[in-house]
């Protein structure tokens, strides 16, 4: 094969089928929206029980995390995700899935070195950089307020 790496890369791009972006985005929009609607129903439910907006919000997050983890444990979440893509990744249920799934997977390596050590292999970077950027944001805000 007489090709440079660059030429080969271009050729591969040309012969490889691309992801159906429009369909993927439409499915993500609908499924992500549905998950948020379920969250809204819980939020209204908790508000109607006389809880404050803040408590209802917290309880809604807890409920959605529980549902995400439950559907992961029942091996349903990955089937939903195959259809929904980003629609199931972005909401908080996706975060629950990213923690619950390695916990299940690495159970075979024991509770300490398996579940304990590997639980955050997927979600770990999100936590590290999420917390880091919130600290940076806080620092910038603190400096700006003193100027």
């Amino acid at each position, binding site marked *: *094969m007489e*090709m440079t*790496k*660059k030429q*080969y*890369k271009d*050729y*591969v791009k040309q*012969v*490889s*089928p*691309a*992801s*159906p972006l429009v369909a*993927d985005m439409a499915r993500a929009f609908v499924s992500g929206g549905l998950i948020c609607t379920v969250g809204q129903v819980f939020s209204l439910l908790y508000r109607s029980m006389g809880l404050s907006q803040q408590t209802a919000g917290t309880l809604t997050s807890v409920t959605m995390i529980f549902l995400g983890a439950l559907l*992961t*444990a029942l*091996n349903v*979440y*990955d089937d*939903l*995700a*195959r259809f*929904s*893509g980003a629609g*199931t*990744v972005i909401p908080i249920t*996706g975060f629950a*899935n*990213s923690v*619950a*799934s*390695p916990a*299940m*997977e*690495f159970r*075979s390596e024991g509770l300490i070195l398996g579940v304990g050590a590997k639980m955050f292999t*997927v979600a770990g970077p999100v936590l590290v950089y999420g917390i880091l950027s919130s600290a940076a944001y806080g620092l910038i805000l603190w400096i700006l307020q003193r100027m």
Partner: protein
Amino acid sequence: MIEKKGRALLLGDGPVITASAAVGGKKEGEGPLGASFDLIVKDPYAGEKTWEKAECLLQKKAVTLAINKAGRSPTEVELLFSGDLINQCTPSCYAAVGLGIPSVGLFGACSTAAEGLALAALLLEAGACDRAVSVTSSHFCTAERQFRTPLAYGGQRAPTAQWTVTGSGAFLLERQGSGPRVRGALLGKPVDMGISDVTNMGAAMAPAACDTLAAFFRDSGKTPDDFDLILTGDLGSVGHRIVQEQLGQEGISLDDRYQDCGLLVYDSARQDTHAGGSGCGCSAVVLAGHILREMAKGSLKNVLLAGTGALMSPMSLQQGESIVGIAHLVWISAE
């Protein structure tokens, strides 16, 4: 006698594949080649505690089935060549324990089935042993957790991604006996064309397959017309197209006789396997089951298999290395 013609190694009459066995999982059993398996193990755990142990069991079953088919016992086998995809090839190690056969562990990623067959045939032809078994296995669940994400993680697969075959294929080779013969081999060169997309392994391995097939036709004096079937291991739809196009440009026309084991093992549209099957077990089960059955029936006489492998690890990719491809070739003849 081994005749060396350039890189092609031609084996005179060549050692005989006296028996083979293909063991598959549920999805493989539901695929187009389902009827060609000797055993289908539907439970991904195969009754074991871990997927790794299950893969080990598949391999053990394939070896004992092949040896039993030929009416032999493991004590009569002098060498075992085995390999898989998992770190340090542990499924192969544990499968070999208890068989009592001196064993050679191999890692050629998904090319290991062809690599093991080639090495076993060469050592038999050279007189180093009279009877050898070559076996490889892969398991969808063990491969996913090592190379990709946890099984229950909700992600989407790229259209170019492939599906690791759960299964194991074993071959018993003897110097004497009846069956198709290994008539030639060519050991592949590692080729790196700079592809680092782990969801497009076919494109990463295709240049190695082109190199190996072109070298074989150039050095052996054979042409594609001398074969009823030319197979690559697990290039899938993207790699299959690349090999067809690129060899065509070099004046080697493979035409309809060119197939890929990864495309044969699943019905991509019905089984949601995207670009096709992959893994050490892919070419092993297709050859040990479907192809050798067809050769026994007489519908195939001369078959070339270029087993393709992606020599990479999750670590090498994270460190920014691209994927090295390799392809080892065996020529099997029922004439």
